[in-house]
């Protein structure tokens, strides 16, 4: 009985020791830039024209919400992230189920589904923008010349109605692979005892999925959910390369607006404020995901 309190203390101390390297690493490397950025976000600071930042308080934050381009980018980001989140979670889960249950040719299937992960996103997006070109891309060529369905050929990336859909499609192509790995790892973590017990109880097929698999993937939802939220709200490369935010501002996302303000206009103060707004939104949804997953 004397062991218990000491063990508890030992756990606390070890806890701190184990976290310390990570914490120091993050603190030393990221915290300086973060704090510097926060200070800049409260200042009027143009990197090239101003000699030093001038403190102005929350002016940049108010400016953001009065900026119509920022509001449009926020709407676009939410549209993208909402659809993307649902699609990537559902599709990846289904694919993970298929891979879990199929033991034939698994090497081939896994390799082909995971391949998009290793390809640099910016390069493959250039390829996609060529493939979806209106008059001379291979997708329209295939539809009109091979399938003889020219009425299905469309101005995929230049029509404001379909531009965002194509960006979502390409993002799904890039991201489903890793999300599937995460789900697969989660599925394989479910001990077979549970399945045996269910078989004894007479559960088959779909019932197995709903009653055994779904409830036991709680930890996986946290991880896959957060990753999907990050990929959705922090999307940048795909709209930048595929449509450059166009047509009009139909695919301008928040990260792109931040990039434009930081690197094209050199308005570091405003860009930093936008970055903090975006990060708080992402944090909010991540915590939401955490809370929902653990109470499920």
């Amino acid at each position: 009985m004397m062991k218990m309190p000491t063990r508890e203390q030992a756990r606390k101390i070890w806890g701190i020791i184990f976290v310390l390297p990570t914490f120091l690493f993050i603190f030393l490397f990221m915290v300086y830039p973060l704090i510097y950025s926060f200070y800049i976000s409260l200042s009027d600071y143009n990197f090239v024209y101003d000699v030093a930042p001038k403190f102005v308080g929350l002016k940049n934050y108010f400016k953001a919400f009065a900026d119509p381009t920022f509001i449009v980018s926020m709407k676009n980001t939410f549209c993208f992230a909402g659809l993307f989140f649902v699609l990537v979670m559902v599709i990846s889960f289904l694919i993970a189920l298929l891979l879990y249950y199929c033991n034939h040719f698994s090497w081939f299937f896994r390799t082909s589904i995971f391949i998009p992960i290793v390809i640099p996103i910016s390069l493959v997006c250039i390829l996609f923008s060529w493939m979806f070109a209106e008059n001379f891309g291979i997708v329209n060529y295939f539809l009109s010349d091979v399938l003889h369905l020219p009425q299905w050929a469309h101005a995929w990336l230049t029509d404001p109605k379909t531009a965002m859909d194509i960006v979502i499609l390409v993002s799904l192509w890039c991201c489903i692979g890793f999300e599937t790995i995460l789900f697969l790892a989660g599925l394989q973590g479910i001990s077979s005892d549970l399945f045996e017990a269910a078989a004894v109880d007479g559960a088959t097929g779909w019932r197995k999925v709903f009653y055994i698999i779904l409830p036991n993937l709680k930890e996986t939802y946290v991880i896959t959910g957060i990753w999907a939220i990050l990929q959705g709200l922090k999307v940048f490369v795909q709209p930048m390369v595929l449509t450059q935010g166009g047509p009009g501002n139909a695919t301008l996302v928040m990260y792109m607006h931040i990039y434009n303000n930081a690197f094209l206009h050199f308005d570091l103060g405003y860009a930093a404020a936008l970055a903090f707004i975006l990060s708080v939104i992402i944090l909010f949804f991540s915590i939401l995901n955490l809370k929902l997953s653990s109470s499920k």
Partner: protein
Amino acid sequence: MELKGLAKIIVIMLLITLSFFFLLPVLFAIFTSFKHQNEILSTHLTFWPHDPTLFNYKYVLERGAKYFTYYKNSIIITLGGVVITTILSAMSGYAFAKLPFKGRDLIMLLVLYVVTFPLAAVIIPIYIMEYNLNILNTNIGLILPNVMTVLPFSVFIMRGVFMGIPKELEESAEIDGCGIFRTWLNIMLPNARNGLALVMIFSFYNIWGEYMLGKTLATEDSAMPISVALTLVKGENWNFGVLGAVIVLAIMPPILMFIIFQKHLVKGLMQGAVKG
């Protein structure tokens, strides 16, 4: 898990369709890399190269010996980053999952916050910091920020994995007289193999293909990683044949690694199925 009859056939058909969807653009890139410019830009588009050529690869590899440096840099940066990330996330993941200490949730939130912040907004402060520390254009100067971008999520993965390990294992280790460190090393880690495999895959492919930090912090040829160096053959606008060759050269090393280490990776990922 075995499926029978019709269900098996449907599953396999679905997987074939999906594989097709994922592989098609990659195959298109590979085939384009073997085409002449006039075939790519012709009015009759083709999928297969009608007149295969190695011209695009010659064009990309013209810079010759420098490629050795670029690949070397990428390998050092990626391996260094993966090793550091794996060790740190295995330690902190365990702490967040099993070891209660004051402020645990707060620190967890801080770690999570770091990854929500858009990189583009902090890249200039990071440049200033590295300039003052004199680590610009060095391998360590790229390893550190890259670890920063992958560490938070890796910690999350390991935390989830450790939380899934039943308490009984820990308690039996306690009864056997193991200290916390021994418990972690001998009991927890082996049971978290699939998490470690995940973290290694995640950090590997994120650091290997990382572009924004690379192009800003490594402007000299001697320190440039391959992900940035390959985009230097762009010309005023991308020649699609060259783009295809660049994509093939960029994905070859990771795919080779995947093929070589496939057995271990699959074993790690499958570890849960073996249990029980």
